[in-house]
């Protein structure tokens, strides 16, 4: 017999909502206290969230960890989410004191490459969530080599109002370049175009790219980076049921050399993948 019972259950816990505020229409930042049983999370990891004691939504919902902070014996995690359907709508109605069931931290986070010293973030919309944590982690963590602190962040949103979390990032990043679809602030156009316009200012040899956003945006980045042979990691999304690698529901197609078809599980093999692993 193996597995001591005391080791169990460290990853299923009750989270108590501290705050849940609208940052823009349909965009919310929620902060949740999860007790110190919550294991040290890596940027890029996610949590599965349910509203405690409710039968609906039926399945838990995955959200990236936007930030982690410690206050005394409790860990506070933040989630940055967009209301897109019924589950996120219900989440947005919760308030201080309401309880969640949290499973996590889950998945494989970003691989912070020690051999390269510039971090380039490309975030579209809520894709900023895991990248914000990555930026905070790199600036604050002892695990990250001192000199790897140069962070260049490209952040895109529909309009200026949706550039959420920008103030926080501005303090951490060495360079923050914003773009909006309507030009209401920064570059007018997509964040990928903005990135490509500024590629000259990036030291391609010493940089790693970290990217999160809508599928089409990541696909476009995937195509662009081929040209520059920069290592690039993407955080993928897929519908999930279990979040722990068991249901095989969250597959993305893997790039293979031959004709064989293989799938990767976003929840377990990812959500962060090297861009070259995915068959876009």
């Amino acid at each position, binding site marked *: 017999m193996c597995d001591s019972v005391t080791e169990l259950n460290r990853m299923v816990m009750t989270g108590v909502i501290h705050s849940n505020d609208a940052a823009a229409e349909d965009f919310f930042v929620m902060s949740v206290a999860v007790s110190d049983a919550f294991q040290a999370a890596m940027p890029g990891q996610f949590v599965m969230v349910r509203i405690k004691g409710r039968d609906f939504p*039926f399945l838990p919902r995955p959200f990236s960890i936007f930030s982690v902070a410690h206050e005394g014996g409790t860990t506070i995690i933040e989630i940055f989410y967009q209301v897109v359907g019924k589950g996120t709508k219900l989440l947005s109605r919760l308030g201080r004191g309401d309880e969640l*069931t949290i499973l996590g931290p889950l998945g494989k986070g970003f691989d912070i490459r020690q051999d390269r010293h510039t971090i380039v973030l490309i975030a579209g919309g809520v894709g900023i969530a895991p990248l914000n944590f990555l930026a905070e982690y790199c600036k604050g963590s002892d695990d990250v080599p001192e000199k790897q602190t140069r962070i260049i962040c490209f952040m895109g949103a529909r309009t200026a109002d949706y550039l959420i979390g920008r103030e926080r990032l501005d303090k951490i990043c060495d360079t923050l370049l914003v773009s909006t679809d309507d030009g209401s602030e920064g570059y007018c156009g997509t964040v990928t175009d903005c990135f490509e316009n500024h590629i000259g200012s990036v030291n391609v040899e010493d940089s790693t790219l970290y990217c999160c956003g809508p599928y089409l945006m990541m696909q476009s980045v995937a195509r662009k980076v081929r040209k520059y042979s920069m290592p690039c990691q993407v955080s993928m999304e897929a519908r999930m049921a279990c979040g722990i690698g068991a249901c095989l529901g*969250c597959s993305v197609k893997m790039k293979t050399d031959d004709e064989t078809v293989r799938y990767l599980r976003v929840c377990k093999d990812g959500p962060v993948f090297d861009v070259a692993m995915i068959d876009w």
Partner: protein
Amino acid sequence: MTVRIGSLELKNPVMTASGTFGYGEEFAPYVDLNRLGAVVVKGLSLEPRAGNEPPRIMETAAGMLNAVGLENIGVRAFVTEKLPYLRQHDAAVIANIFGETIDEYSRIAEILNGAPGVDALEVNISCPNVKKGGIAFGADPRDAAEVTKRVKDVTDLPVIVKLTPNVTDIRAIAESVEQAGADALSLINTIRGMSVDIDKRIPHLKNITGGLSGPAIKPIALRMVWEVAGVASVPIIGVGGINTASDAIEFLIVGATAVQIGTANFVNPRATEEILEGIERYLRTRHIYDVNDVIGTLNVREEM
């Protein structure tokens, strides 16, 4: 809490449902595997299978659709890579098997017959998400019997046959499979369903249809177990929408000797253990010392 499934004795009636518990190890951080009656592993085919193209799942009212398409590492990799870990635990290991042809079923069964640590086979003739095999065998009493016979021929392990609900009369299939030598029956597999994205006017699943599971289907599963309990003399394993101990007890009362927990594992990875504890509590508070005293005790005559 001991129950018997053919020659197999389980220390309690709570098992996992195939395809919802991986190969067990995925759940080790959440559940003490030693507490479970049995772990039924993800369906195994002769060769590894990549499964269907995504999207593969979609939430529905109190349930979910899946069209995973039996992605698995293949029976040989299971024996070498997954079985050693599972064997260390004090839970029976039941291998769920699937073939595109009757020959394949029998070859997988042969391979597993020699594998140390496998306690029983569960023959999946009911997967709705693959083009060949699966449901095709499960919907016809003769085909279902034929698969059962061929598997029985090559194995000494207890053979559980897993039935599909997508039929007019599940009793006919059950009877036929029992006559062919099945040591036990498990039911139900998922019910074929569908869901549509009204903005894009495309199915939510790439496979168009998928298998419905979860609490939504519990009343249907329970009815079928009750029906089959009326005709079968081998033990029945109840599956379908069991989310709480109370659900599990309903299945025992209508005649299931054991239960499998499926989709509930996704909602709460600790579901199996919590359901087991709930059954124990139910028995304790009612001073029932043997779970077998609950099995098949539905009273249909009493005044209500």
